[in-house]
């Protein structure tokens, strides 16, 4: 069992390789650049291809072509680059092609900065590009979890013939942690009889398309896509619960911020305050079950994010007006600290009494 010290960005790359990904098309942007650096070296070693595109528009469309040709393929970027990719992501979603997109988030909007942030939550989970579509979005909270989720990301992409996004903030990309390499999922590639590989040995032509001029026809496509999203919502929600059994105050956080929230929970517990944490691992489909489950004991929720309050909307959607849902967040690449979050949670706790 190999245990190595690895940067988060490198783990995205190694995890992808261990998931059978042989093709990467990308364009440089901080704070994810170690990922293309890593793959530029590693992919040729395994007979794969690293290709630097002229833009994010080109890289996502290279991904589109490679996915149509039946390959396991990936790209990566950060906020501004992901914005440029949204055109391609919408086309890929409609053409129902599998691929994996990594977003190592930085501060926005606009050029923003290169400091860690979680401000692309809306963009990732609510569509992002034009039209009605969704991507499964995975949010690992450690370098080990990146490694563990990359196989799942590619499997989900193939299973649903859909782009999948794996998202982390800049810290997750930059942090170094020990990783067990053999924990990635076993690669079992499913056949892709729909791929455009040339008609040789096949009766019919394969066409990869996202154009349906007849409204009735396009509505049918949309209904089929929606059915697929309902299937994802039924089968693919993932989350972690921490000390929620009897929790009166429940924090919710994703990615690296959840680790800060976990420390806050521990500190509250040592002070005799019954706190707990729900950490969504899939941001889409959003895990509603753990929130509904704790309603019995929980009096209030506190959502902690490195943005101006994005996931808090999904928590409110689940909890409704049954319990208050508070928010604490920092923006602009400012980190939340354990002390800050603890102060906010204590304030809310005091208000409860």
């Amino acid at each position, binding site marked *: 069992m190999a245990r190595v010290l690895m940067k988060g960005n490198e783990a995205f790359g190694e995890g992808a390789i261990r998931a059978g990904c042989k093709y990467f098309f990308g364009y440089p942007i901080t704070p994810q650049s170690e990922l293309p650096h890593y793959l530029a070296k590693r992919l040729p070693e395994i007979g794969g291809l690293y290709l630097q595109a*002229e833009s994010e528009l080109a890289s996502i469309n290279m991904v589109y*072509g490679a996915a149509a040709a039946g390959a396991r393929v990936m790209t990566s970027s950060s906020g501004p680059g992901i914005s440029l990719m949204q055109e*391609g992501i919408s086309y890929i979603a409609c053409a129902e092609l599998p691929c994996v997109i990594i977003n190592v988030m930085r501060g926005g909007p606009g050029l923003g900065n290169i400091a860690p942030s979680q401000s692309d939550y809306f963009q990732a989970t609510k569509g992002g590009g034009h039209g009605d579509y969704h991507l499964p979005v995975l949010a690992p909270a450690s370098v080990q979890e990146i490694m563990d989720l990359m196989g799942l990301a590619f499997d989900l992409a193939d299973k649903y013939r859909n782009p999948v996004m794996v998202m982390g903030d800049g810290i997750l990309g930059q942090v170094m942690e020990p990783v067990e390499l053999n924990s990635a999922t076993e690669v079992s590639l499913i056949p892709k009889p729909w791929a455009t590989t040339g008609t040789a040995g096949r009766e019919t*032509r394969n066409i990869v398309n996202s154009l349906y001029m007849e409204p009735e026809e396009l509505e049918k496509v949309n209904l089929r896509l929606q059915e697929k999203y309902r299937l994802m919502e039924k089968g693919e929600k993932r989350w972690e619960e921490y000390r929620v059994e009897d929790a009166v105050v429940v924090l919710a956080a994703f990615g690296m911020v959840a680790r800060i929230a976990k420390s806050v929970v521990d500190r509250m517990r040592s002070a005799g305050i019954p706190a707990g944490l729900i950490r969504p691992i899939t941001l889409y489909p959003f895990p509603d079950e753990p929130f509904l489950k704790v309603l019995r004991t929980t009096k209030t929720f506190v959502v902690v994010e490195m943005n101006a309050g994005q996931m808090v909307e999904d928590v409110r959607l689940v909890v409704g007006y049954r319990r208050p849902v508070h928010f604490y967040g920092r923006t602009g690449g400012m980190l939340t600290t354990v002390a800050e979050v603890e102060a906010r949670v204590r304030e809310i706790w005091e208000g409860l009494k």
Partner: protein
Amino acid sequence: MAVSLNHTEGLTDNLFHYCPGCTHGIIHRLVAEALVELEVLDRTVGICPVGCAVFAYNYFNCDMIEAAHGRAPAVATGVKRVLPDRVVFTYQGDGDLAAIGTAEMVHVAARGEKITIIFVNNTVYGMTGGQMAPTTLVGQKTTTTPSGRDAGVAGFPVKVAEMLAPMEGAAYVSRVAVNSPKNIRLAKKAVLRAFRTQLKGLGLSLVEVLSTCPTNWGLSPPEALRWLKENMIPVYPLGEYKIPEGDT
């Protein structure tokens, strides 16, 4: 009566949707025939553009992908890099290739991507209603240059063949026209040569085809052919701008 033109296996039985007298149909046929003659139809993947040829996947009798506006060369890159032994071509209009898709076009040439671009230059955006294209001639009236393209306002035509030929990764670049039987024969030769260049793995091959748009030019089909000859060819001279070394 002798039949001089048989159905080519390179095209499906679907009827073209193009306007009467539009030369998109001729260009389709030339590409389809070339793929059949080179015996590569069953290992070809074509990429359709946005524009009047958006439905080309209904016509070419091979695997096809529909791409976003201008992005076909990037999509083709993805396919070719995964399947290097397949024949990959894009079919793009001037709005598609020379406006929104300029970067993608230049960079497949820079990389020497072993794909073939069939570039249909009809000096307008056909599908969206005859607006000015990058290739619109100075003085030419379009729906967005109602009193003729004024170079001082709207700039000068983009000459794609001249632009890409000097690039090291471009192996074969030519400009042809489909306005006369003679030119159509030359166009066919160029298309064949472009695909041969790809099969030899020499780099990017691009054939710019001067084409008509009778509908948006407001001309009858014969008038359109004449307009192409008299107005387009002087600005866009025909010929082979780059041929692979040693390939005479």
